[in-house]
């Protein structure tokens, strides 16, 4: 489903990603971990098509399409969803209106019939119930005045509505207390399925107790320094990132 090959990206002339290779097959959950500044969020943003990041080389194919050549809205319509680390507020725009516009844009791109107001309302209420989201939130302006927890839940809720093929969660656990974390993880788990893949970017292994990944990758200085299964995240929890960073540094100098 997703093939990343030799991906290099920089921001303001600083190279952040220095050769990422990653394959995600349908239904898999991959966790990207790593110390601060290792490029985790950059990877998420590059996949979504953020302007500020310049891809200097490499290739990303998504279901056979050249993802890097598509503007962000086309990627979204093709099924790529990013749950933002810092969801933005859009004052005066009701969440329901925002989501209806988004859903219909995506449905249109897929050649499906757009939903009218009544159909959408029913659809969205079912989705809200499925992820334990208070549907009163729909009437409020997008993220305006939402607490940190509400914003993150709103991201998961939007994911449920838009039904992406690939969901990238960018530090969705940051700033959440344990109860909110469980609710968010619960929402994500309900959306797991044979056709839907996840890339879960996180700094802490805590989230992975609730969203159990198939693969864990450790990003150090813009490269995947180590990959493994769930047990790798537990090892990181215990030993920190130092030993991998050290090993990565050695292999780096050995390579020179």
């Amino acid at each position, binding site marked *: 489903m997703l093939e990343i090959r030799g991906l290099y990206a920089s921001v303001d002339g600083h190279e952040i990603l220095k050769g990422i290779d990653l394959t995600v097959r349908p239904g898999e959950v991959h966790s990207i971990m790593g110390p601060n500044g290792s490029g985790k969020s950059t990877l998420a943003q590059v996949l979504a*098509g953020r302007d500020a990041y*310049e891809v200097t080389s490499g290739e990303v194919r998504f279901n056979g399409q050249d993802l890097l050549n598509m503007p962000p809205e086309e990627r*979204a319509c093709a099924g790529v969803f990013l749950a*933002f680390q810092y969801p933005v507020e*859009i*004052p*005066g725009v009701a969440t329901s209106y925002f989501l209806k516009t988004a859903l219909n844009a995506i449905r249109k791109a897929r050649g499906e019939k757009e939903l009218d107001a009544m159909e959408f309302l029913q659809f969205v209420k079912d989705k809200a119930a499925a992820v334990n989201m208070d549907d009163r939130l729909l009437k409020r302006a997008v993220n305006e005045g939402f607490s940190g927890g509400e914003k993150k839940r709103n991201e998961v809720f*939007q994911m449920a509505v838009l039904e992406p093929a690939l969901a990238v969660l960018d530090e969705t656990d940051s700033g959440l207390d344990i109860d909110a974390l469980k609710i968010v993880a619960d929402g994500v788990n309900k959306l797991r399925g044979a056709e839907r893949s996840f890339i879960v970017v996180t700094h802490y292994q805590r989230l992975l107790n609730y969203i159990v990944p198939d693969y864990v990758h450790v990003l150090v200085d813009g490269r995947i320094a180590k990959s493994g299964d769930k047990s790798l995240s537990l090892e990181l929890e215990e030993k920190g990132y130092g030993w991998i960073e050290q090993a990565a540094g050695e292999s780096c100098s050995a390579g020179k």
Partner: protein
Amino acid sequence: MPPTSDAALERWEQQEYKWGFVTDIEADSVPPGLDEGVIRHISSKKQEPSWLTEWRLKAYRHWLTMTEPTWPNLKYPPIDYNSIVYYSAPKQKPKLDSLDQVDPKLLETYDKLGIPLEEQKQLAGVAVDAVFDSVSVATTFKKTLAETGVIFCSFSEAVQQYPELVRKYLGSVVPYSDNFFATLNSAVFTDGSFVYVPKGVRCPMELSTYFRINAASTGQFERTLIVADSGAQVSYLEGCTAPMRDENQLHAAVVELVALDDATIKYSTIQNWYPGDVDGKGGIYNFVTKRGKCQGRNAHISWTQVETGSAITWKYPSCILQGENSVGEFYSVALTKGHQQADTGTKMLHIGRNTRSTVVSKGISAGRGQNTYRGMVKINPGAASARNYTQCDSLLIGDQCGAHTFPYIEVKNPTAHMEHEATTSKIGEDQLFYCNQRGIDTEDAVNMIVNGFCKEVFRELPMEFAVEAQKLLEVSLEGSVG
């Protein structure tokens, strides 16, 4: 990398004004220039009573002593008042009894603009008065309105039919000597709308005037007077468009509202005069004086405006809150893009006890647009327990535009309660990316963000017009951002 959202924004710059066509119709015009002869000519063309001719001449003589105001935050070359045609009317039969007698070309023009004048095609419950260049060409639903006693007709007709009402209220809110542009208007105004709603009558439909400037080098100087007698209620809407022309055209209108005891007047404007081309050539100079007087107790005047057109907008719909417990409101959306400039806002003058006012202003600047909010709230010594709430928000799109705010507050009674809030924000790359990431393209995203920003004003508009305003804003925004 994929095409950036900047590129999508850039594309919009080329969007054209969709109402810019010219109607080829024979006109009866005076030569350009202004003197007492021209004024007498206009007055006699309209067969006006001598008091009105004298009133015009008084205004003209006063105008000669005045100078154009320089305080607005606007830049434009000097206006040559002698190159303007002060009267232009489509040639037609002298008197219109029904729409059948209106030149089909005119009807076609309004049809093109989406303003059908045939009554059966009307939006349910909206009566329309159409003003083409200097004269009113048709007023619909007159009969239905007459049954309730509501007078809705062109200003010229009112002068003939209801001279006492006109004489009583004309200039009672905006005196002939008020300001440079209002005084000019008083001297040369050619037509406009007149509304009188009798005691206790709630006007059964929305009233609407549609203004169209067609002829070249013509100024449009219309005058609207709305009187709501005790306990009366009326909602009035005006819309405006003009052809695309290379020269600037002057529009200097005056609107006077009078609300007596317990009366309510709601006045909504959707102004979409030609704004000029992408280089700032052409466009309407819109210098307008609008003022309402809450003359009686519990009177209520509400202004709502959506200003998207004109090269220059200079306009401050105001309320004189004279009657005890009277209420004044001003809700405004002003959009400037390309080279448009707007200096707009309101004045709330609190005279009576316990008077209240609300001001909500939303300024949007895109391209090289310059948007200024200028407002004054004045609490006189007698206005015990007066209250004002002012909110003015500015939204910037791109980095070459400007937003300016000049609020003046003058309080002379210690029991007054004043609130003022102001924000300036920019449509952020963050917001656009967030929308894009959800599948919404940049154009739709900008529209959505702007509409959200304007929501508090749009919900004050009558339903049909709220939709129209929203669409207009979307069309106006296309091509605005780069």
